[in-house]
Every structure is written in C-alpha cells, then in structure tokens.
C-alpha cells in the first residue's frame, strides 16, 4: 500500500548517521577524563572525600563536638556522592558543555543504542536500552526484597525467636517493603513504559532522552543506599516503610539512608513521569489521537500525573524527618510543639496515590493482553480510559483512610470513608469491562493471558478486602493487623506483580527477539498462583482473629497458620527462580521471535523483534483504533516497509519450544 508520510513531524530523521561521524568533544578525551566507569572510579571517592573533609573541617573549625558525626556525614554523603558518581559516568557531560557555552553537536546520537552488552552499562539515551536497564535492575531488587521476605517468613514459621532478633527483623520488614515498592514495582513499570510507549505512539524515542538516561541511573543509587543501611552501625532502617515519627527519629542512623534513598528514587520517578507526559502529549504519530491511544499509554499518562503531583509529598515528609534529626527542627517532635499526626497526612498524601502508581500501569498491560489473546476490542474503551482519569482524581481524596485510628480529626473519617469506598466504582468498571472483553472472544491461553486472568481474580479479592478496610468501623478492628498485610499483598502481588509478569511475558519476544519457554512460563504461573494464595489468604484470618502486623514474635495460637503461610512463601520464592531461569535461557538460546507472534495490532508489534535502533524508518500513520480485532480490513497503523499489520495471521506460528 502506498503511504504518504506527513512532513514536519519527523524531527528524528536527520542525524541518524551522525554517530558515524566524529564523536562529540566530551568523548575525545583520555580514558580517565572521558565519562564512564573509569572516570566514575575516581570521581566517586573524590566526592566522598570532599564531602567528608568539608563537613568535618567545618565542624572542627567551629568547635562542634564530635567532629566525626555519622548522622551529619550520612546526609552529606547521600547528597554529594551520587553527583560525583553521575558526573564521572558522564550523565551531565552534554549539559555541562552546553551551559558553559562550549561547542556541542546539534544532533548528538553518541549515547544512543546498544551494539554490545557493554552499552547497557553506560549512560545510554535509547529508550529501549533504558527499558532493559530498568527491567534487569528492578528484577534484581525484586529478588533481593523477596529474599528478605523469606527470612521474615522463616522467623515467623513458629512463635518465639529463632533466627533473628527484633532489630534485624524490623530491619527486614522495613527494607522488604521499601525495596519492593521503590526499587521494584514503581520503577519496573517505568522500565516497561520506557520500552513500549515510544513504539506504541510511533515516536523515535522519548522527548528528553538525556533526562531519561539520568532518571535510570538515579535508581541503582537509591537501591544501593537502602542496602547500605545494613552495614552502618546499628543495622538497617527499622521503623517500617511508613517510617512514622517519633519512632523514626529515635531509631539508629541507618534510618537516614531510607530518608535519603527515597529522595533519589523519587527524583527518578518524577523525571521519568515528566518525560512520559511530554512524550505522550507531543510525540504521537500523525493520526494517533488521544482516543486512538492504546490503554497502556493512557494508563502511563494518568500514572505519570499521579507521580508528578504526589511524589513531592513523600520527598517532603522524609526531608522534614531528616531536618528534625540533623538540623534539630521540631516538625514532628511533640516536646517542641511538633504535630506527630501531621507526618502521616503528608506521607499518605503520596503513599495512597502511590498504590495507584503501582496499579494503573498494570491495568494498562491487562487491557493490552486481554484484547490480543481474546481477539476482541477492549470493551468500553472510552470508559476504560475515563475510569483511569477517575481513579487519578479520586485517588487524591482518600489518603486519610490509613489514619482512621491514628488520632486525626474525628469528623474527617466519614468523608474519607465515602471517597475511599467510591473509588471502588471506577475500579469495578475496569473489572467488569475486562470480563466483557473476553466474553464471546476466541481465547488463546498463552502465558500472558494466564497472568492477566489470574490478576483479575486476585485483584478482586484485594479490592474487596479494601472495602472492609475502607469502612471506618471494620477498620477500627482490622487496621494494623495481618488482615492489612493480606490485603496489601493481594493488591500489590496478586495485583501489580501479576500484571508485571503478564507484561514481561507479553513483551519478552519484542524486547529480546527470542521466544520464552511457554511450558516453564505456565509452571511459573501455577506455582505462583497456588503458593501466593496459600501464603496470604490465611493472613486474613489470623489478622481478624487478633495477630498484629510487624511483630517478630506472636501468640502461639497462630502457630499453625503461620507455618502454613511460611511454607507457602518458600514455594512462592522458589517459583520465581523458574522465571529467572526461563528469562536467562530463552534470552540466550530461545527460538527467534517473529515480529508479531501474538498477531497484535498496536504499533510496537509491526516492527521487527527487537526493533531497530531508531525505531522507525518512516513516520507511521495511525488510521484507526488499537484493538479492532474481528473487523474485516480494520487497521490501526500504516507503516512504510514495516511488516503487514492488521489481523492477518503470521505465516509461522511460534509454539512452546
């Protein structure tokens, strides 16, 4: 079919070959002065030394005692050293040249794309490379935080104290939650979005590729800070991931590494979200109206709004704690007139929307997967998109339901309860519309579909237990018990993590160019599904019956159920190794993936697997909705030289290998 490429939209066309020309000036330097790991190897310790010398020197000069104060130094290090590292890595090179008025290349592609594995370990501006960087990094932290959870369950397998004391136990619970949230679930969606959003909207890259590269490198910094808290005197931060003062201000110095680590993780997600918003608004291919965007793009659009609006609040809450501790302010110090409950308001004003930050991108994935594998349009597409917006808006009006028993103004309980319960409505719309999407379909039970359907049932349980916790009277009983632990895991594991696996299997062929092993993927699903329910369902019961959360020791009457839960968790942990094995082996030697193994209509599947370095040779032209399955001749996109899209089956279908 002849296609007409619109002019004026292809700002990425020029300069495709620039990277064959001379490298930009900041790369024409000796290996120790050129951005990269060698340079970081000396700039990082140098920044550490400078920060230490500055703080200790200043304290010595002004007669502060002691000169070596670990609290102050930790804050100094966690602020300065990341900049030293990022500078060494070359994350700022272009900008430094630019702002100092030196010569830069107008179209610089020196940092774009991966020709060898080494290119994944540098500052890289290719959204596809960054997507993979995110995915690998975040799954590493998923395993770390999962391992921490297994230690917890081992300790809880029987009452009394077996392996760890309560200091270590509290450190494990706090870092398990924190790492899962800030280093896995939130950023893994940023990684998936990074990979697929530009492809899905027909863009060559993200709007700000250099900012995108920087966003990624902030993430391992945050992760290392949180892990480093295990080696500072006193042990890991242990006041819970919620980090409520005054406890948080009394515990050991390791807590500062949480407070400062969150800043870097938060900065990473804010910058990525800004990038997503600008990319989605300004870089859609001709014809890609908002009402033709895949729901995954809608989901990341709304999620990014939440991130940008809400994340500054947790950053602020942790800064205020740090100020109290290091600058001796009294924000949350009751003896100094501080208001303890105020912290909780600020914290939850982020941390409740954060639950939607961890869910909405997954909702998007589920819509993609269900439509493709049921071979049907998404039911009620517009209402699905609007319900995301509904959750975005309502999501900001429910935070205090975490505080029904916290001692906040009593009148506030009722309105917060009403909004909390009402948010079940847009969520319900999504569930019912998904069911209607698979109704009357032609359902292909491939691995992503297993995870998507598993998600629906598990998330419904998590949503319904949320109605219990949203009701003030029931919450007065169930708050702060294992019922809450069960609820949050049905929402964030049965919810978010199931969607992550659906997405991981769905886009694995696109990202790696290889097919995963279908049989192992299904084994992974079934073991996870069963073990997940064994682990967490019983926790509803022990919580309602009287077991509080965050305890290393408990009433022996709950011994049996805790043992069941622990055994379930060990199987759950082991099942994830199947996933890791499947990914590694398939990535190395899986069957070659065709461009479009799922016969999907969205744009990323019309490109080769993996897509070429600069995504599109010509600007794609969008001519219809993204899910027009079953409509003869319907098309979503017209691509010059791309594989033929529509719903015509691939000649060679790839099965389990």
């Amino acid at each position, binding site marked *: 079919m002849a296609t007409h490429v619109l002019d004026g939209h292809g700002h990425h066309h020029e300069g495709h070959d620039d990277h064959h020309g001379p490298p930009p000036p900041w790369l024409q330097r000796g290996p120790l002065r050129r951005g990269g790991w060698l340079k970081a190897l000396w700039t990082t310790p140098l920044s550490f030394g400078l920060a230490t010398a500055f703080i200790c020197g200043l304290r010595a000069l002004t007669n502060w005692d002691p000169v070596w104060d670990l609290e102050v130094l930790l804050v100094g290090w966690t602020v300065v050293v990341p900049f030293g590292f990022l500078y060494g890595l070359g994350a700022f090179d272009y900008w430094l040249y630019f702002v100092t008025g030196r010569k830069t290349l107008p179209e610089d592609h020196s940092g774009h794309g991966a020709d060898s594995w080494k290119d994944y370990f540098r500052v890289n501006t290719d959204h596809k490379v960054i997507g993979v960087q995110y995915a690998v990094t975040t799954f590493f932290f998923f395993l770390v935080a999962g391992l921490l959870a297994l230690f917890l369950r081992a300790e809880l397998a029987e009452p009394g104290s077996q392996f760890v004391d309560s200091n270590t136990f509290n450190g494990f619970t706090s870092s398990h939650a924190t790492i899962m949230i800030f280093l896995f679930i939130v950023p893994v969606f940023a990684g998936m979005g990074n990979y697929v959003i530009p492809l899905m909207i027909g863009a060559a890259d993200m709007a700000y590729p250099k900012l995108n590269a920087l966003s990624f490198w902030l993430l391992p910094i945050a992760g290392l800070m949180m892990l480093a808290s295990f080696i500072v005197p006193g042990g890991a931060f242990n006041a819970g991931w919620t980090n409520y003062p005054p406890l948080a201000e009394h515990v050991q110095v390791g807590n500062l590494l949480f407070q400062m680590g969150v800043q870097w993780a938060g900065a990473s997600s804010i910058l990525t979200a800004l990038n997503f918003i600008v990319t989605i608004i300004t870089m859609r291919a001709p014809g890609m109206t908002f009402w033709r965007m895949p729901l995954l793009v809608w989901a990341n659009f709304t999620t990014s709004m939440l991130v940008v609006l809400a994340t500054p609040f947790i950053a602020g809450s942790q800064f205020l704690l740090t100020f109290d501790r290091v600058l001796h302010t009294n924000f949350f110090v009751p003896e100094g007139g501080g208001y*303890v409950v105020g912290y909780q308001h600020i914290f939850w004003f982020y941390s409740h929307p954060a639950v939607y930050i961890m869910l909405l991108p997954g909702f998007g994935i589920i819509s993609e997967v269900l439509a493709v594998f049921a071979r049907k349009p998404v039911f009620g597409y517009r209402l699905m998109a609007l319900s995301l917006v509904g959750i975005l808006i309502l999501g900001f009006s429910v935070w205090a339901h975490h505080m029904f028993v916290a001692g906040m103004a009593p009148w506030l309980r*009722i309105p917060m309860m009403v909004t909390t319960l009402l948010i079940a409505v847009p969520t319900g719309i999504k569930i019912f519309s998904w069911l209607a999407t698979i109704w009357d*379909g032609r359902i292909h039970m491939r691995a992503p579909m297993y995870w998507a359907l598993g998600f629906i049932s598990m998330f419904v*349980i998590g949503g319904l237990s949320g109605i219990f916790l949203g009701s003030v009277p029931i919450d007065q009983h169930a708050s702060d018990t294992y019922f809450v632990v069960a609820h949050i895991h049905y929402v964030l594991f049965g919810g978010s993590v199931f969607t992550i696996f659906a997405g991981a299997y769905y886009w694995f062929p696109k990202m790696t160019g290889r097919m995963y092993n279908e049989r192992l993927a299904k084994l992974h699903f079934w073991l996870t599904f069963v073990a997940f329910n064994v682990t967490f369902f019983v926790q509803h*019961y022990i919580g309602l019956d009287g077991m509080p959360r*965050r305890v290393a020791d408990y009433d022996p009457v709950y011994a049996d159920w805790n043992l069941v839960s622990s055994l379930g968790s060990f199987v759950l942990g082991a099942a994830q190794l199947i996933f890791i094995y499947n990914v590694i082996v398939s990535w190395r030697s899986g069957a070659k993936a065709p461009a479009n193994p799922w016969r999907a209509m969205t744009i990323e599947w019309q490109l080769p697997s993996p897509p070429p370095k600069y995504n599109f040779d010509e600007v794609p032209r969008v001519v219809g909705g993204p899910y027009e399955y079953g409509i003869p001749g319907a098309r979503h996109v017209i691509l010059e030289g791309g594989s033929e899209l529509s719903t015509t089956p691939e000649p060679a279908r790839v099965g389990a290998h």
Partner: protein
Amino acid sequence: MRKKSIIQLLILAVGIGAAAFVISFIGIPWLPKVGSEQGERIDTVYVLASVISLVIFAIVAAASLYAIFKFRAKPDDEEDGKPTHGHTGLEVVWTLIPTLLVTGIAVWSGVVVVKNDRLPADHMVVEVTAAQFAWSFTYPDLNITTGELVLPVDEPVELQLRSNDVIHSFWVPEWRQKQDAVPGILTTYRITPNREGTFAVICTELCGLGHAVMRSQTRVLPQAEYDQWVAEQQAAVDGGGDNLGKAAFVNNGCGSCHVLADANGTGTTGPNLDEALVGQTPDAVRESIVAPSAVVTEGYPDNVMPKTYDTLSQDELDALVDYLVKTTSG
C-alpha cells in the same frame, strides 16, 4: 443458546457463591467472640460487607471461569472474536450498582460510627498511658494505677490515651476497636464491655524493638467483683503509703511487665520478679532498674525495658530497691 449460557453461568455463580458462604460463615470463626456493645454494631457492618463481597466475587469468578472454558479457541483457530465495542446499558449498570452498594456500606458504617462515638454523660473514665513497652491504667477518681485494665461489665467507659514516647495503639480484638496513643495529643476510646472475661490488650503500632511483647490484659468483671478489686487496690496503695518502694513499683506501672505477687504485678513481658530476684544483691537490683542492658535475664530480649528509670528520685529508687529485695527474699 444465549438463554442456555446465561443459565449455565448462573448455576456456576450460585455454586461459587455458596462455597464462599460456607467458608466465610460456617467453616472458620473469622472473628473472636464479640465482647462489647460497640463491637456488636461493628459486626453488623462486617456481615453486610462480607455478603456484598461474596456476591461480587462469585459473579467475577463465575464469569471468568465460564469465559475461559466456553470461549477458548481451538489450537489452530485463527478467527477473531465478536467485535463488540461496548454496550452503554451494561456500562451504566456496572457503574450504578456498585455505586449504590458502596454507598449503602458507607451509610451503615457512618451510622455505626456515630452511635459508637456516643456515651452517656455519666460514663467512667480511665487514663491509659503507653510507653515503650508497657501499658499503665490510672483510675483518676479512685486513685488507682495498675498494669492491667479492670472494668465492670456493661458499664460505659471512656479510655483517655496518652503516650510518653512514640506512637502505640490500643487494641482489644474482642471489643473490635483500636485507637492510637499519640505523643503530644489526647485520644479517646469509648467502649461498653458486655461480656465478662479476660482479654488481651495488644499494641498494634510498631513502637520499637519490644513491640511484639507490648501486651497487657483486660479483665471484665461483674460489678461486685469489680468493687472488691477496687477495694483491694486501694488497700494496696494505702499500704504502700508508708511503703514508698511499693508505691513506686505500682505507680510506675512495673506490674504491667513483671509478675510480683505482693504488688499484684501480673505482666509477662519481663522476667517474673518473684523468681528472678531471689538471692540478688541490692546493687544488682538497682543496676537492673537503672541500666537494664547491663545484665539481661536469659530468655528475654535486650532493649525492651525502658532505660528511663534512672530518672527516678534517689529516695524513690532506694525505697524501690529496698522493697524489691525484701519482698522477694523470703
């Protein structure tokens, strides 16, 4: 065809719903037996939410299971499904019905909250003080301070909660309510216990290393037994009037973590003093009070006992050591 599939779906939904009902209301006693008027009201909301949840879960589970089996494609089936884009009527239905259901739960919950917050004007008051990691209860009108909460049955009471250090939370599962004790502010907990018995008082807000063992108990007694208990307590306090050491033990809430028969101490968080102090020198006892980490009794975790008792006055401390040594020496 269409009618048949709807009937099949209905049968499936009813089956799943019935199974869920059995598990929820017959198989497992999900909640401990209720012991307060407020708790009985709360349980009505719980039952309402459970019924609604089970129906919704049954519908979703039935629809997805039915779809998976009924609409599954044959291995080489390359056809697409029916291109339905939506159905306004259905979308209105599944927006409106959940709205009505959650509004119903919200209204009922609101009614219960308002009723539970209301107590008759002449209710009892007990001051509850939380500290790492013990509860102490003061009866302001009776001049009693104890480590366990003792209440007469069917008597409305307002607990006034304060915290000396970090946030704690007061929970009695049988009463179905909890409330945080927050440093710097006063919070209240209104309850009318209507079942006699001994129930656990559990701290449910992470408060530090001893959080798991921050427990006490509440005893709900018939009025006569309660009056008798009050008399005994007042005698003990009066008896401690010329015994400064015993008064120090009682007033500092030591009995909420330690057993000491002479002063009615019943706590099990820390060592049983009737046993642990036998044969201890006064210096060793003093050290255990002001520097609890110096010697930690085998089987008990370190860093649980507050390290703040070195602020007791010298007279009080001397008297307390003297009292403890004498009481446990024979």
